[in-house]
């Protein structure tokens, strides 16, 4: 009798077998490392990042587009700046499904997130928040709300919070490394991923204009005959 052959016996090194709804992120390398082959729906997940603008939202664009399928909203709650419509449209996130919520206090932000997730009208809710009191309890509430609304809840927080425990089922640390995005997964439904996944290109470099040489204090020259097309890279 081999215990490992019993259904329901789980070994520490494997992904959880139970089926959870997921949406593909569009990055094959990342999807392979996520249990269920994609970003989880109906649960809270965390993205830890240092600084704004390293691509912490961009790599989720594919998942957001899929989460908004079936007329569901993508709620941007307390985002650091206004999400810029042309960029979202480029990334394939349907604009008419985006709902920007700018609460005035942390309580309002968490309340809005809970309402949005629970309502079932949102496919995804992205939440940015500084540390609040009873953070764990609030995150637990968001987790419950995401389960109830079968929505994808993503909580963005600084890398320093990795030491704090979380009720989220997925925790991802995003780091910028030269041209690529390195993603470490310290918590998932399965063993933690220690070797980071590398995806994508540096945002913004996929540009039709090549950078003109700039001399200090000099005006850049704009000779259009010099324009060369840069090779297209992964647009996300």
């Amino acid at each position, binding site marked *: 009798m081999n215990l490992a052959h019993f259904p329901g016996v789980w070994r520490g090194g494997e992904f959880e077998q139970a089926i959870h709804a997921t949406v593909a992120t569009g990055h094959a390398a990342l999807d392979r490392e996520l249990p269920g082959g994609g970003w989880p729906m109906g649960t809270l997940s965390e993205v830890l990042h240092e600084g704004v603008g390293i691509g912490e939202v961009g790599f989720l664009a594919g998942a957001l587009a899929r989460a908004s399928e079936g007329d569901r909203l993508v709620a941007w709650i307390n985002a650091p700046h206004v999400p*810029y*419509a042309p960029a979202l449209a480029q990334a394939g996130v349907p604009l008419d499904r985006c*709902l920007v919520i700018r609460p005035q206090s942390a309580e309002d932000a968490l309340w809005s997130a809970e309402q949005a997730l629970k309502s079932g009208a949102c496919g995804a809710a992205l939440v940015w928040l500084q540390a609040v009191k009873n953070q764990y309890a609030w995150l637990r509430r968001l987790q419950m709300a995401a389960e109830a609304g079968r929505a994808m809840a993503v909580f963005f927080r600084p890398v320093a919070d990795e030491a704090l425990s979380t009720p989220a089922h997925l925790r991802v640390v995003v780091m910028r490394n030269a041209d690529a995005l390195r993603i470490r997964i310290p918590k998932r439904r399965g063993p933690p991923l220690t070797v980071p996944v590398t995806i994508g290109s*540096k945002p913004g470099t996929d540009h039709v204009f090549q950078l003109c040489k700039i001399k200090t204090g000099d005006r850049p020259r704009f000779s259009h005959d010099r324009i060369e097309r840069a090779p297209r890279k992964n647009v996300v």
Partner: protein
Amino acid sequence: MLWVALELPSLPLQIAERAGASGDAWVISEGPAQRPTVACANEAARQAGIREGQAVAAAKALAGELKVLERDPSAEIAALQRLAAWAGQFTPMVNVEAQGIVLEVASTLRLFSGHAQLTAAILRGVRELGFHAAVGVAPTPLAARIIARAEARGLQVRSCVDLRELRTRLADLPLFLFDWPGETLARLTDLGILRVKDILELPREGLARRFGPAIVLSLERLLGNVSDPREPYVPPPTFRSRIELPAEAEGVQALLFPLRRMLAEFEGCARGRGAGAQQLLLTLEHGRKVRTRLALEFASPEREADFILAIAREKLGRLKLAAPTIALSLRADALLPFVPRNAAWLPGSQERALERERLVERLAARLGRDRVFGIALADDHRPEKSWKPGTDPSFSHAGQKGQISPGGSPLGDRIQRPVWLLQRPQRLITGDGHPSMQGTLDLLAGPERIESGWWDGEEVSRDYYVASNPHGETFWIYREHRDPAAWYLHGVFS
């Protein structure tokens, strides 16, 4: 014909206790100011030995801290009229009587699957409004009322649907249930005529001669031999309701319970008219003419009590009340046609649209309308003008499939735009001619010349670059064409 009568025993007391009962003993007084008498007494007062008809002075001697409220007949009529308007959701033929209402239900019986279900639904609704009523069902309105009154006094009478059975059902009921003059009733009692069967055995001509033709007419109407025409109550095209609180209420939580009752009343009235309201005015009265007004506004006409209560709760939660509240009133000045939402067998786009709408309403109620918005593209090359706050995603395109995702910006997908755009460009520190933002910025791509808007006075003439700092953060920066030394941060890639 089938009639349902609702009898509201001790109505003044019910009106006073609607906003929530308190444990104190209290009575409603009526009669001349010199010698008021007790019209109704609540449970606590009854336990102290106070009975109806006693002088108020005697009642005060029995219970130490007795609260006395004066009876207000106009409030009673208004309450019954609102109840009749509320009952308009069950049948168009509702008639207001003393201490109750009668409803003709034969025409709507099928819709509510039988009189048992219908009366159960009516009673459930009445309880939600904060009233308790006794119900009588009979083929004539008078008989229905008599049965309801008997029920209110604790006499068990089975409801009667068949006109032929009516006589036997009513036979044992006492005559004091009728609205006859007290003198007539006293004389009948003296003659030993106590029950309905006794009076029905008597010859009609003799009765008419002795007690007047009105008595005979009401007996004939009771049995359905003579028609009993009634004018249906037509509610006004607006809604008004007011509840006085039993005690001064501090804070907002205590207001939700009476508010729920008023909203249930509103829902019934609106349902009866096939209407909803886009704006409801809630007024909190604090005494000495101090009032707090609160407008509940919706994108489309609404009437569901639970939904409106959820919105009101958020709005009330934001209020700082200066004084305790003593009364609540709710007003809808315009009732608009309500488009009922059909329930789908499988949840589909309609439910989604409704959920979206409800979510946006709820968020806007707490955060404010300008803090919840959608985003849309605008046809302009200037970055700050190439997006605009869109209409709420809930109201536009609801249910329009295929129009979602226009599939790219007017730029095409060659040029990348940052996910975050700063509301106002931020001047960067330049050291040695190089812009820096937490470290010297390294230009990755550019320039992209954006020169536009000379026609509306907000001209821009900028060269945009993509730049990154040593931490790996990528920015969208520009410098003015006319002032190349000044660098600005305008967007953050993400």
